[in-house]
C-alpha cells in the first residue's frame, strides 16, 4: 500500500507530488530530501523512516523516485519494482528520462499516476491498458543537434548512414507514433552486461554475463511477433544441442506473455508485444564463457607505471580505464599512442582515467603514465590497481546469442521497420595488477 509518490530532482526540486491516502502531509518531501542530503556520499539507503512513515526510493535518470508507506509490512520488492516500472512508463511516454522531460510532461505524469495507482493500490502498469486512458500528449524535449543533420545526405539523398538507426531513435515517446502514423518501428535489443575479475596472471577468476532481450515497440497494433534465437541455444549444462558451437546459458527466464510452445523445438519465442519497452527474456551465464574475455592488460609497474591493452574483439567504443594510484600522487605525465585518447588524474578518486573513444579490434594500445608521488614508500605500490575497465562493445554478444529472425504476423503494412541491435556493456570489468 503506497501512501504518496513523489519525484525529486537531484537538487531537491519538487517535480511531481501525489498523495493517495491522505496519511501524511506534503512536508515529508522536504524531510526526505533533508535525510538524503544529510548523509555522506551520494548513496542513501533505499529505505528510510520518519516517524511512522517509510520512504522507499530508487534513482532513475538522475531523479529520486520516492514512494512512502505507513505499513512496515509492505513488500519492498513490490514497491521497488513498481517505482522502476513507473519510471519506465514515464520514459516510454515522455521519450527520455531527465529532469527536463519530467518537468515538461508533468500533466502527463499526473495522468499516468492517476491511472496506475488508486488509493495506494497499484491498478495496472501495462501500457496496452493505459493507452486507452492517457489523453495528454508528450512534449518531447529534443535539443537541436548537429549529429541529426549528419544523417541527412546531400539534397536528401539516401546515404549509407541513413540505413543505420541513430542511437537516439528509440528514445522518443511511444504515443507520438499514433499521430505521426508513419514510423511504426520495432527495436529488438540484445544487451549483455559482463562482470569479470581477471587475476594478476591473466587468469579469469570470475566471469558472469547477465543478458536481456528487450523489445521496444512503437507499433500501434502488433498482433504477433516471432523471435528466432540460435538453433543451438541451450539452457543448463546437460542439454547440449547440435554439433556446432553451442550457445549455452545457465538460466533463462521469460516474460509472462511469451509463448514457449515453439521454443523447445525451434528456439522461437512468440509474443504479442505491447507498446513501449519490455524485457522478453533474461538469461545468465557464469564462469564458463564461450570466448576469452575481450580485454587483457599487461601492466608493468616500476617506480613508474605503464600498461598495454589487447582486445580480442573487433571494436569497442567509449572505453575508459580507471587506474587507482597511491594517495600522495601529485601530478601525471603521460605518453599515449594516439591523440584522441586522453588521460587525466582525478585526485579525489585517487585514480587515472584513461579514455579511449575508439578501440580497434585485435590491436594493442600502450600507454605510459608517470606519476609524481609525494612520500613514496614501498607499500605505495600496493595501492596501484586493480584497474577497472568501462566499455561498450557494439554488435557483439559475449554469450554468442544471436537473433535469427524477427517476424511480425500478420505482415505489417509497408513502412514498418525492424531494428536488431546487440551490445555488451561492462558491468564491472576488473583487472588485478
Amino acid at each position, binding site marked *: 500500500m503506497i501512501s504518496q509518490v513523489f519525484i525529486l530532482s537531484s537538487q531537491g526540486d519538487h517535480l511531481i507530488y501525489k498523495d493517495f491516502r491522505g496519511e501524511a502531509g506534503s512536508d515529508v518531501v522536504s524531510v526526505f530530501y533533508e535525510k538524503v542530503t544529510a548523509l555522506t556520499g551520494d548513496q542513501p539507503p533505499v529505505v528510510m523512516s520518519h516517524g511512522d512513515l517509510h520512504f522507499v526510493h530508487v534513482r532513475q535518470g538522475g531523479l529520486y523516485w520516492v514512494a512512502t508507506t505507513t505499513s512496515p509490512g509492505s513488500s519492498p520488492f513490490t514497491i521497488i519494482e513498481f517505482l522502476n516500472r513507473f519510471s519506465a512508463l514515464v520514459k516510454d511516454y515522455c521519450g527520455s528520462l531527465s529532469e527536463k522531460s519530467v518537468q515538461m510532461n508533468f500533466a502527463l505524469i499526473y495522468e499516468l499516476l492517476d491511472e496506475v495507482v488508486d488509493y495506494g493500490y497499484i*491498478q495496472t502498469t501495462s501500457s496496452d491498458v493505459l493507452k486507452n486512458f492517457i489523453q495528454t500528449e508528450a512534449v518531447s524535449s529534443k535539443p537541436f543537434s548537429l549529429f541529426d543533420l549528419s544523417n541527412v545526405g546531400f539534397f536528401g539523398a539516401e546515404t549509407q548512414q541513413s540505413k543505420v538507426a541513430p542511437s537516439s531513435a528509440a528514445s522518443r515517446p511511444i504515443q507520438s507514433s499514433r499521430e505521426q502514423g508513419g514510423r511504426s518501428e520495432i527495436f529488438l535489443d540484445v544487451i549483455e552486461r559482463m562482470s569479470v575479475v581477471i587475476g594478476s596472471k591473466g587468469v579469469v577468476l570470475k566471469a558472469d554475463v547477465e543478458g536481456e532481450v528487450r523489445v521496444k515497440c512503437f507499433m500501434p497494433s502488433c498482433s504477433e511477433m516471432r523471435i528466432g534465437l540460435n538453433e543451438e541455444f541451450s539452457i543448463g549444462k546437460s542439454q547440449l544441442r547440435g554439433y556446432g558451437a553451442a550457445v549455452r546459458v545457465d538460466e533463462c*527466464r521469460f516474460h509472462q506473455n511469451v509463448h514457449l510452445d515453439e521454443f523447445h523445438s525451434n528456439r522461437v519465442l512468440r509474443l504479442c508485444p505491447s507498446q513501449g519497452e519490455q524485457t522478453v527474456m*533474461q538469461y545468465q551465464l557464469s564462469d564458463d564463457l564461450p570466448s576469452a574475455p575481450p580485454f587483457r592488460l599487461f601492466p608493468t609497474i616500476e617506480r613508474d607505471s605503464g600498461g598495454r591493452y589487447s582486445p580480442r574483439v573487433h571494436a569497442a567504443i567509449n572505453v575508459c580505464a580507471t587506474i587507482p594510484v597511491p594517495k600522495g600522487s601529485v601530478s601525471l605525465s603521460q605518453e599515449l599512442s594516439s591523440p584522441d585518447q586522453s588521460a587525466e588524474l582525478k585526485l579525489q578518486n585517487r585514480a587515472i582515467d584513461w579514455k579511449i573513444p575508439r578501440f580497434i579490434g585485435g590491436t594493442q594500445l600502450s600507454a605510459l603514465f608517470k606519476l609524481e608521488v609525494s612520500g613514496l614508500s614501498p607499500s605505495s605500490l600496493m*595501492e596501484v590497481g586493480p584497474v577497472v575497465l568501462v566499455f561498450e562493445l557494439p554488435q557483439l554478444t559475449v554469450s554468442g546469442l544471436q537473433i535469427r529472425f524477427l517476424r511480425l504476423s500478420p505482415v505489417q503494412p509497408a513502412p514498418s521497420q525492424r531494428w536488431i541491435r546487440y551490445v555488451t556493456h561492462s558491468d*564491472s570489468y576488473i583487472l588485478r595488477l
Partner: protein
Amino acid sequence: MPYLGSEDAVRELRRALSNPNVQSDQLRYRNTVLKAIRAMSQGVDVSDLFSEMVKACATVDIVQKKLVYVFLCSYATLNPELSLLVINTLRKDCQDPNPMVRSLALRNMTNLRLPSLVEYVEQPLAAGLRDRAACVRRVAVLGWAKLHNLQPDAEIDAAVVNELYGLLRDPDPVVMVNCLRALEEILKKEGGVAINKPITHHLLNRLKESDVWGQCEVLRILQRYHPQSEDELFDILSLLDASLVSPHPPVMAATLGLFLGLCSGLPAVSLAALERVRGPLLAACGSTSRETRFTALCHIQLLLRSLPGLMGAHYKRFFCGYAEPAYIKQRKMQVLVELVNDENVAMLLDELKGYCTDVNPETAQAAISAIGRIGRSYSDRCLEILTGLLGLKQEHITSAVVQTMCDLVWVCPQCSDTVCSALEGCEEMLQDSQGRQALLWLLAAYGERVSSAPYTLEGFIDRVRSEASLGVKMELLTTTMRLFLCRPSETQDMLGRLLHYCIEEEMDMCVRDQALLYYRLLHCGIEETHKVLHGQRSDPSLGVLIGRPAEPINQWAYSFNTLEPLRQAGVETEPASRGSPEHVTFDPKPNTDLSDTLNCSQIEKLGTPISGQLLPFFFAEPLKFHQVGWGASVHSHFQISPEMFNRVQVRALAGPLKDIHRVVPKPLLCYLGCVLRFVVLLEDEPSPQSEVQSALEHVFIQDVSVHCCIHLSLNPD
C-alpha cells in the same frame, strides 16, 4: 519552494482563468489551467484559485478535466463549501456515456476526502458497482474503501459488503483484487476479508489472470488461510510452484512468504522452498536496478540464517562490482563472510583485500572488518593481510585495522602475539577517536607485551590538554592505570601527571570523577586496585557463539518480504548506533533530578554487548564502595537521555564495545538486542533496591527490561 512574488503569479493566473476570451478558446484555457497545476506542483500555494478551477471543471475537454481534478483533490479539504459545487458536475459526469469519464468522475469524487460529501457520493458509487465497464467497477470498489476510511466509526453497510463479496467473481481480475483490498480495509476491525476454502480456491484458480501486482496482493491475503488437511496444503503448494520461480521478484517473494506461512509446521518443505528460490533470488541480485539488487541481498541474508549452505557454490556472485553503491558493497561483504569455507577462503580474502583500498572509506572499513570476522576461523591468513594493510600508512585504514584487531583479539586471544607486534608505530597514523580508543584498549590489555607501550602512552598524556574526545580521555586513564599495575616503574611518573591534570584542570566531570575514583582506589592499596581493574581480555562466552547453528525459519519468517530486513542496514551503518563507547558516554548536563536519588560517583560498564536477554553478572570484587550492578537488555531503538545519567560515567573496561553486531552473530531482525551492564559504585549509604531500580527504569525509558541488584559493601568504613 515558494517563489518570490508567488502572489502576483496567482493573481495573474486568476485573471487569466476568469477571462472570457481565454475561456472560449479551449487550448488557451487548458494551458492556463496547466500553468496553475505547474505552480502547484512546484510548491506555490494556489488554493485561492479554487472557485475559478471549479468553473473550469465543467468542460468537455478530458485533459483539462483531469488537470482540474488534480487541483481540486489537493485543495478540497481547505474549501469544503466550494467543493459542494463540484459535486454536481461530478454527478453529471457519472452518467456520461463514455466509461472513461464515468470512472474519472467517480474516482475524483471519492478522492475529495470530505466527510460532508459522503451522502452525495454513495448513490453513484452503488451504481458504479453494477456498471458495464470494468474500469468503472474498479474505481467504485475502491471508492467504498475510501468512504469507509472517511467515516471509520460509521456502521458498515452489510449490503455493500455482500455486493463486494459477490464481485470477487467479477470477470475482470483487477476488480476482483480491488474487492479483496476494499474488504480488507472495510472489515479491518473484524480481521479483514474472510478467507475460507471456496474463496481461496477461487482466488488460486484465477491467480494467473492477474498481473504481477494483483498476484502479489492475492498471495499476501492468502497468508491468513489455514488449509484443512495436509492434502489440501500440498495441492495449494503444487499450484503455486510455478510462481515460486517467477521471473518477477515481487511474485517470487510473495509466493515464498505464503509458502513459509503455510508450511510453518513442516520445516522440511520450507527448506525445500528456500532451495527452489535460490535461482530467482540470485537473478534478482544481478538485476539492472540496484535497489532490487539490494533488496534481494537483504533477503538472501535472511535465508542464510536458516540455510547457511544455500549460496555456498555461488559465492562469486557476491563479489562487488566496481560501480556499485557502498550500501550494496557492504551487504555483499556481509554475505561473503557467511559463505567462507576451506576451499574458497583464499579467493575470498584476495577479493576482500582488493576492497580495502577502496576510495570510499566506509567500504574500506567494512572490508577490513569483514576480514577480521573471517579471522575468527582463519586467523593466520587474515592477520597477515591486516598487518600488511598497516604498511599503507593511511589514516582510515590504520584506524579500521586497529579496531578490527581489537575485536579479533577479544574473540581469539591466540592472535595477541601478532597483534602486539603489529601495534608498534601505529599511533601516529591514528587520527579518529575510535581508532585511538581501540589502540588504548589493546595497550591496556597487552601492555606488558608491547615494549613501546609506555612511550606511546606518554605521547598521549603529553597531548591530553588538546584532546577533544571524552572517550579517549577515559580510555587513557584506564589504560595508564592498568599499565601501571604491570609496569609500575615506567609508568608511575606519567600516571601521576595524568591524574593531576585530570583532577585539577580537566573541566569534564566524567573524566574528573574517573580520575578521582582511581586516585582513591590507589589509596586503598595495590591489591584492591588490581581487583577492580583486572578486566577480561577475551570473552569466554564467545566460543559457543561463533559456530553459528542454523536458526529455525520461524525466527525470521514474519519479517520476510517486509521493509524490516532492508532497514536494518541503516541501523547498522549509522555510526551512532554502533554502540561505541563514545555513544554511551555523553555530556553530563547540570541536572539534579537523579543525583538526589542516585548519588553515584561511578558507573563502570564492565560487560560486553551480548545478544540475548540477560546475563549473569560479572563485576569486580566489592570494595569499600557499595556496588550496584545491573544489566539491561536494551532494544536497538533505545535512546539514553543524557540528563538521566548526571554525574554518571560509563566506560568500557573489559571489552571494546564499539561493535555491537560483532557479538550478535547475525543481526536479529528488529531485535538488535544487546546487554549493557553497569557497575555503579555508590559512595553513600546504599539506597534501597527499589529506589535505585525505579531510577534505572526511569533511565531506560521503554522496551527495556532492567535487572538490578545491590550488593552491600563488605567493609564499609
